[in-house]
C-alpha cells in the first residue's frame, strides 16, 4: 500500500498530545469508548478537531470544523484537501523529497479537483474544505483517525490510500502523536488479520517467497498448498454457485454479519457439510450439521492483539462452562483425528511456535507480556516493541502517493429508493449482539432496532419520532423505530447492525472492494414507508 503495512501507525497513549485530530468515518465515543476518552483528554488539552461524518456525532458537536459528508463521497473531500495543500504551498517539501515518490503525478491529478467541484459531490461548502486542509497541514502534530466509515465501501482501499496521501504530503507520519490510524472494531481483529489470511502467511509473510515457504514446511512437516485461497466473500460466492462443499466456522455468525442475508443463507444451504464452533446457538449455527460448543474468553488462556498492535494476555478465570472446550483444543483435536497431529500442552507453546515463524513477533513470549503487552514489530527478546511506525523509513522504502479518481458506490439513491442507507455500531451493543444482548445492564439502555431519520425527510414522509416504520431496499425489508432528529444528514438514514430480528444486513448490498473484498456496508439506497398505509 502507501507505506507497506496495515495497522494503526501510532499508539493510544499518544492521542492526548495531538494538536489536531482529523476524525473521518469513525465514532469513537460509541464504538471505541476508551479511545474516545483519550480523545476527550486531547480536546481538554486544546486539540483541534475536524470531524467528517454524515452523522452529527459527539466529536462533531465539539469540533472546530464539522464536515457532514455524503456517504461514499470521501474521495472527493480527501483529494480536494490535497489540492488545497498543494495549491497553497502548504506541503512538507523536505519530507516529500526525501521520503516519498509519485508526488508529481498526484500534483497533476488533483490540480482539477477543486474544493468547488468537491462541494457538489460531498455536500460540504468549498470554504470548509479549504479550512480543513489548512488546519491539517499547518498544525504541529496532526493525526488522522478513521474506522469502517472509510473502509466499508467498494472504494475502501482507495479511501485509505487517499488518506495516506494527506499524511505523506504534510509529513504527519513517523512521529509521535501523528499518523494514519485505523481503529480496529473488534477485540482481536488485528491479531486475526496478523495470523489468518488466505493470501499471506502469519505476520504478512509472502507465500511466494521460497525461503518463507521452506521455513513453514520444515516446521510443520507438510507441503504448503499452492492454489490461491478464497476470501470469506469469494467462499460465499462459491457456495451460492454450488461450487463449495464444506465449511468450518469458528466464532463467527456470517448469516448476521455478511451483507445480503438471503444470498448468504442460500450459499450455506448448498453446502454438504457445515461445522459451527461457537458459544451460543447463532443464526449460522442453525444451518450446521455439527455444532461444537466453545468456551468464552473468561475460560481460556491466550493473547489478543489490540488496535495499536499490542499483544496482550487473556487469562483463564473460570473452568469451562458445561461440557465446553476452548477453540484451540477443539481445532487441535480435530486435526489430530484427521491424521495431522497437533499436540500442544497449552496456548503458550502455540505462541512460541508463532513467534518462531513470524519475524514481527519473534521477540514476544508469555514471560515478557506477563504484566504489560508489547507492540509489534518486536524482532528479538531485547527489543522493547514499537510505539509508532515509519520513523525514518517505510517498510516499502519510500512512501507512495496514489492517484485515485472518484468511483461512485455500487448503488446510489434514485427515484424509487431516494434515501442513502448507512449502518454502524452503538455504544451499548457489539456486532451481532450475541454477547451484549444477553447482558441486562446493556439492554436496559437500548434493545430494539431504530433508524435515524433527518427531521426534514421525516416531515416530508409524515413520519413521527418513535413510530415503527418499514425500511426497504432492493434486497429486503425490516421494521424499525424511527428516531427523528438533526443528527443524521438530510437524505441519509442510519441503522445499527446489532439486531437479528431486524438485521441491517437484510438490506445491505453484497458489493465489495476489489482489493480487500470488504463489503459496502456503508452505502446503499433505501426508502422508508409508514406501516399500515
Amino acid at each position, binding site marked *: 500500500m502507501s507505506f507497506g503495512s496495515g495497522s494503526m501507525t501510532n499508539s493510544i497513549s499518544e492521542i492526548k498530545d495531538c494538536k489536531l485530530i482529523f476524525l473521518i468515518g469513525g465514532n469513537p465515543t460509541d464504538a471505541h469508548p476508551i479511545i474516545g476518552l483519550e480523545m476527550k483528554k486531547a480536546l481538554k488539552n486544546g486539540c483541534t478537531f475536524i470531524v467528517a461524518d454524515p452523522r452529527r456525532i459527539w466529536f462533531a458537536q465539539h469540533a472546530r470544523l464539522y464536515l457532514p459528508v455524503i456517504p461514499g463521497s470521501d474521495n472527493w473531500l480527501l483529494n480536494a484537501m490535497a489540492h488545497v495543500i498543494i495549491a497553497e504551498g502548504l506541503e512538507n517539501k523536505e519530507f516529500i523529497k526525501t521520503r516519498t515518490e509519485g508526488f508529481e503525478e498526484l500534483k497533476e491529478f488533483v490540480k482539477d479537483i477543486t474544493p468547488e467541484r468537491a462541494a457538489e459531490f460531498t455536500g460540504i461548502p468549498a470554504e470548509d474544505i479549504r479550512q480543513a486542509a489548512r488546519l491539517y497541514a499547518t498544525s504541529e502534530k496532526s493525526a488522522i483517525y478513521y474506522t469502517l466509515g472509510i473502509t466499508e465501501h467498494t472504494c475502501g482501499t482507495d479511501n485509505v490510500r487517499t488518506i495516506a496521501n494527506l499524511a505523506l504530503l504534510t509529513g504527519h507520519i513517523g512521529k509521535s502523536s501523528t499518523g494514519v490510524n485505523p481503529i480496529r472494531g473488534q477485540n482481536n481483529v488485528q491479531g486475526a488479520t496478523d495470523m489468518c489470511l488466505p493470501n499471506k502467511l502469519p505476520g504478512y509473510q509472502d507465500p511466494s517467497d521460497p525461503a518463507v515457504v521452506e521455513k513453514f514446511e520444515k516446521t510443520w512437516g507438510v507441503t504448503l498448498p499452492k492454489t490461491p485461497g478464497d476470501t470469506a466473500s469469494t467462499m460465499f460466492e462459491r457456495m451460492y454457485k454450488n461450487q463449495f462443499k464444506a*465449511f*468450518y466456522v469458528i466464532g*463467527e455468525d456470517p448469516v448476521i454479519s455478511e451483507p445480503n442475508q438471503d444470498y448468504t443463507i442460500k450459499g450455506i444451504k448448498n453446502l454438504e*457439510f457445515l461445522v459451527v464452533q461457537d458459544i451460543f446457538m447463532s443464526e449460522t449455527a442453525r444451518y*450446521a450439521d*455439527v455444532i461444537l460448543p466453545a468456551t468464552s474468553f473468561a475460560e481460556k488462556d491466550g493473547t489478543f492483539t489490540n488496535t495499536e498492535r499490542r499483544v496482550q494476555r487473556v487469562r483463564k478465570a473460570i473452568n469451562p462452562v458445561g461440557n465446553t472446550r476452548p477453540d484451540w483444543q477443539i481445532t487441535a483435536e480435530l486435526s489430530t*483425528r484427521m491424521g495431522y497431529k497437533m499436540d500442544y500442552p497449552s496456548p503458550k507453546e502455540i505462541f512460541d511456535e508463532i513467534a518462531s515463524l513470524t519475524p514481527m513477533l519473534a521477540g514476544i513470549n508469555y514471560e515478557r507480556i506477563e504484566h504489560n503487552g508489547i507492540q509489534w514489530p518486536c524482532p528479538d527478546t531485547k527489543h522493547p516493541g514499537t510505539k509508532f511506525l515509519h520513523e525514518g523509513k517505510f517498510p516499502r522504502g519510500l512512501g507512495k502517493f496514489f492517484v485515485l479518481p472518484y468511483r461512485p458506490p455500487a448503488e446510489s439513491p434514485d427515484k424509487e429508493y431516494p434515501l442513502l442507507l448507512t449502518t454502524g455500531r452503538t455504544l*451499548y451493543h457489539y456486532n451481532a449482539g450475541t454477547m451484549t444482548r444477553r447482558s441486562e445492564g446493556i439492554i436496559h439502555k437500548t434493545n430494539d432496532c431504530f433508524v435515524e431519520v433527518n427531521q426534514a425527510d421525516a416531515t416530508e414522509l409524515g413520519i413521527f419520532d418513535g413510530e415503527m416504520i418499514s425500511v426497504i431496499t432492493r434486497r429486503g425489508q425490516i421494521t424499525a423505530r424511527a428516531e427523528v432528529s438533526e443528527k443524521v444528514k438530510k437524505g441519509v438514514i442510519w441503522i445499527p447492525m446489532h439486531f437479528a430480528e431486524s438485521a441491517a444486513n437484510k438490506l445491505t448490498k453484497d458489493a465489495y472492494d476489489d482489493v480487500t473484498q470488504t463489503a459496502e456496508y456503508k452505502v446503499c439506497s433505501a426508502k422508508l414507508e409508514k406501516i399500515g398505509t
Partner: protein
Amino acid sequence: MVMISKIKVTIDGKTIEVDKGKTVLQAANAVGVRIPTLCHDPRLEPFAACRVCMVEIERGKSTALITSCNTEATDGMVIRTDSEKVLKTRKMILELILSDHPKDCMTCEKCGSCSLQNLAYEHGIRESQFFEEPDGGIVEDSNPVIQQDTSKCILCGRCVRICAEVQQDYAIDFKNRGFKTETGTPFGMPRRDTTCVLCGQCVSTCPVGSLVEKQAVGKGRGWDFRQVKTTCAYCGVGCTMYLNVKENQVVKVTSKPGSIPNDGNLCVKGRFGFDFIHHPERLKQPLIKKNGKFEEATWDEALNLVATKLGEIKAKYGPDHIGVMSSSRCTNEENYLAMKFARATIGTNNVDQCART
C-alpha cells in the same frame, strides 16, 4: 526533549529530589511515603475536599497544615506527614466524615476494600465524637447495574468529577446543601433518562460503599474474589481488566488506574457486559443434526463425525472445496491453529476471518 527541572524537598526528615511541578502528595508517593487520601484519584484534577491528606509544612518559625493533594512542592520545602499535629487533625477529620456515615460495615458491599473503613481502623476510631445523623439511603433507579446509597456518600466528589472530567457526560452532580448535600442525577431522574451512559466509572472510583455494582450485591466482598487480569473481549482498544471470580462465577469486572492502555477506565460493555459468560443459553454439549433436529452428542462422536466428513469431502472433491473461517473473537493462538488447520491438515489456502465485516 523538554528538560524537567528538579527541586529538593525534605519529607519526614529525608531530603529528596523531585520534578518541579509535582504536588506534595506526588512527591511523597514518589519516595514511598504514604499519605492517606479519600477524594484523590490520579486520573482527576486535585479537589482537596476530604482534607485527609493534610500534612505539616514549615513556614518561617511556625508550621502550617496544608492539603498535600493540591499543593505544589517547592524548593526547600520541609514536610512532615506523621507529626502529632497531623495525626490529631487527621483523626478529627475522619471523625467528622464518620459523623455522617452509617456504621453498618457488616452488611456493606465495600467492607474490606473501603478506604474510609481502613482509615478508621488505622486510626483506631470506634465512634465519632460528633453528633451523628447519616441520612439518605438507597436511591430508587430501575437501571440494573449501578446502585447508589446516599447515606454512605462522603462527598468526595470523585463520581461527579470522573463523569465530568474523564467521561465528559455530566450526568451527575452535587445537589442540596449542608447535611442534605448528596450527589445524583438532575431531579433524581432515572439514569437511563439522563446523559448517563452506564459506564460505571462513578462506581469504580467511589472510595466507600455509596456506589456499587448492582449485579454484584450480596455476591461477595473484596476478600472473597480472585482477581484475574485479562484483556477485554469487546472492541479493538484492548482494555486491561480484572475478572472478579468467586466459586467459578465471574461476579464483577474492575480495572486499575495505570493499566495499559485504559488507565483503569472501562466502558459499559467492558464493565457490565459479561452476563453472557454464565448465560443459560450457552451451548454446553456438542450437537449433531439428525433428521433436521439437533441431538446432544459426546465430544468423541462429534469430533469423529467432523473428521470423517471433512476427510470424505477432501477425498471426493479435493481440499479446495473446503474452507475455514475464523474470528476476531478468538485468540491469536486459535487463529493461528485455524490457519494451520486449513493449510496443513486440509491442504487449502481457503482460510479467512471476519476482519472484512
